[in-house]
């Protein structure tokens, strides 16, 4: 329920001793990283109630899916969570392939895994820099962007886009991964490993950072279950829930990787989960680069005009922020009957009101940073 209040309302707490005031954080606030508005009832610097108000960047992606052909909706999916576009297009492409019963060639699947994991690393780097900005550390984001630039260059070479990739196609890829990309990716993995060590030494082990995040903003596994929080948020609560292992897709079953979990359930746990995930992604990329076979990158018989048989199909992927699921309903026509997008940031934000109760403002904002919200992903 969204309670619209005047901007300068003030009231009395139930015990009648403390005067509270309403702080309207956003939609233009440096810590919101976009157009998120949080209506806070404050007792001094303590938050009594923080109510996120969303919808400022709602673009009706689901409705747009119902009035364009199956292929034309594909670019929309890369604009939902613009920081992990590869994963998102993977989910939609996967759902349509499941409907059409297309067998995707091995080479294409491996290329999808490599590009998705590269995208996950670049997404986590933006999160890392932005979280440190929230905590008042200005320098890390420029180091992160320096390394992220290398990923963007690699992916630009493949599909021409640097952010909103549209590289996957029904049945395969837009074009083949070339040797330059494979070699560049190998070089990047070699470059990135010592950089992650440096990040740990310079930032993760910093005492101020540890004090800002440790024991701040506990989000228990139970709370995650009730709100449907996934991704690093639930893994930071000690639950090894990862779509790549729980509902295996693509060639992930053939690759070895760990699911980092931390039972502390605080902001530091979520921070460490993401830092470890970057290492795991590098290891996945390395294995995939060794295993990628030669062969076609497109399934042989993909129909020109796509008309999936009537039915209800789902495909979930582990995006950088958690479980992203596309559910499509087809009535056998050229345009989808219904496209349902299950975005992780929405669920991860929904627990904010409960989790932030009684916190002090800087801590609440540090916790918001540790949720890694992408506002267009919330609003869709």
């Amino acid at each position, binding site marked *: 329920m969204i309670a619209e209040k005047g901007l300068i309302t003030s009231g009395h707490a139930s015990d009648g001793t403390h005067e509270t005031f309403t702080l309207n954080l956003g939609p233009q606030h440096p*810590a919101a990283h976009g157009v998120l508005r949080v209506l806070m009832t404050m007792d001094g610097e303590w938050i009594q109630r923080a109510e996120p108000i969303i919808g400022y960047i709602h673009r009706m992606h689901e409705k747009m899916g119902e009035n364009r052909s199956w292929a034309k909706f594909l670019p929309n999916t890369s604009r939902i969570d613009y920081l992990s576009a590869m994963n998102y297009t993977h989910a939609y492409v996967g759902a349509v392939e499941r409907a059409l019963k297309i067998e995707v060639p091995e080479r294409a699947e491996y290329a999808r895994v490599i590009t998705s994991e590269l995208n996950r690393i670049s997404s986590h780097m933006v999160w890392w820099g932005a979280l440190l900005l929230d905590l008042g550390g200005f320098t890390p984001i420029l180091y992160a962007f320096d390394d992220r630039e290398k990923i963007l260059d690699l992916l630009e070479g493949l599909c021409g886009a640097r952010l909103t990739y549209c590289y996957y196609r029904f049945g395969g890829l837009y074009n083949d991964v070339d040797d330059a990309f494979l070699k560049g990716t190998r070089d990047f993995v070699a470059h990135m490993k010592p950089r992650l060590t440096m990040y740990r030494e310079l930032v993760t082990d910093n005492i101020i950072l540890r004090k800002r995040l440790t024991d701040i903003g506990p989000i228990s596994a139970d709370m995650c279950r009730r709100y449907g929080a996934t991704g690093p948020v639930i893994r930071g609560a000690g639950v090894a829930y990862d779509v790549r292992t729980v509902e295996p897709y693509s060639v992930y079953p053939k690759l070895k990787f760990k699911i980092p979990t931390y039972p502390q359930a605080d902001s530091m746990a979520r921070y460490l989960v993401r830092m470890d995930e970057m290492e795991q992604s590098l290891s996945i990329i390395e294995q995939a680069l060794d295993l990628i076979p030669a062969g076609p990158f497109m399934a042989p018989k993909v129909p020109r005009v796509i008309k999936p048989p009537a039915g209800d199909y789902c495909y979930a992927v582990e995006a950088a922020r958690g479980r992203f699921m596309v559910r499509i309903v087809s009535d056998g026509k050229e345009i989808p009957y219904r496209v349902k997008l299950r975005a992780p940031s929405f669920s991860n934000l929904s627990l904010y009101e409960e989790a932030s109760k009684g916190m*002090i403002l800087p801590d609440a904002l540090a916790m918001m940073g540790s949720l890694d919200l992408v506002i267009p992903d919330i609003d869709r």
Partner: protein
Amino acid sequence: MIDFLNLEPVRILLYLVAICAFVGANAAYLVLAERKGAGRIQRRPGPNEAGPAGILQPLADGIKLLAKQVMVPPGTDALLFRAAPLMVMAPPLMCLATIPFGDSIVAVNLNIGLLFVFSFGSINVMALMLGGWASRNKYAIISAARVVSQSVAYEIPMLLVVITMLMVTGTLDLSEVVKQQAGWFWHWNLFKVWVNPLMPVTFVIFFTCMLAETNRAPFDMAEAESELVAGAFTEYGGMGFGVFFMAEYANIVVGCCLATILFLGGWQSPIGALSGGLWGPVWFLGKMYALIFTVIWIRWTFPRTQFYSLLNLSWKILIPVSLGTLLLTGAMMKLMPFVFPSLH
């Protein structure tokens, strides 16, 4: 001619003009130095478009700020809102009048210089609080409340440290404090471990408190932009903001000057020779700018502390430690003449 320049009112007037110019030039070019330093730390060139290597950037910034309207938002206390930037700029100018930059380069050689600097240094907080309160903005009011509690917390260990230094030097006269540190660098108060073995710790406490008093990262609670938008300065624009910004650097200059005088031998040379005449300001400014560089370096390296751990740091660590050094210094000063009579 010489007689005319030696007249007391003329001399003071010239010094005051020089101090204003010094503060203005420092504030303008420390902003550039900060941005250049931040650029180097962040693997980018920093401002480099205005003039060769960006040296005209402060001019461009100044013109931009001057050309902007000074907005007084409706509903604010217009008088206090306008007065706050002036109140924040005046105290550092007053403080610099008593700072000895060289052997005989001091505007007013007060025999209570140290007391004078600290009493004027505290006004800074009142100005920030007024600015925040008069803005009638919730972020600004939270910031004003933070500034006051932070200042109360950090004034105490800072003054305890100053009392320690007062016991060591025995004078409030800043020129006299510098004169006592003549000779090689181990004569500086920082290294006088036979007076108090915790002297380097005292310096670290002083420096930390100075960072907190001047609202510099990692203690920049007044302008915690990711929490409070721009804190006390949220409603200020144009030159109103520009003066706050300059005052921050002027306060850093005063703080680093004090640290140089109290701990690093002021205008004394570190090698025993070359300390008279024009060498004095050279050593003094060299030490001061080294400290200012450290301040900049810290800002671009560390994240911000949380407000309550900032207060805890002061009340639970800095105040007990500085009280301890105070007691230790007293005890050492009474005991040492008996143990090592030759040193005194």
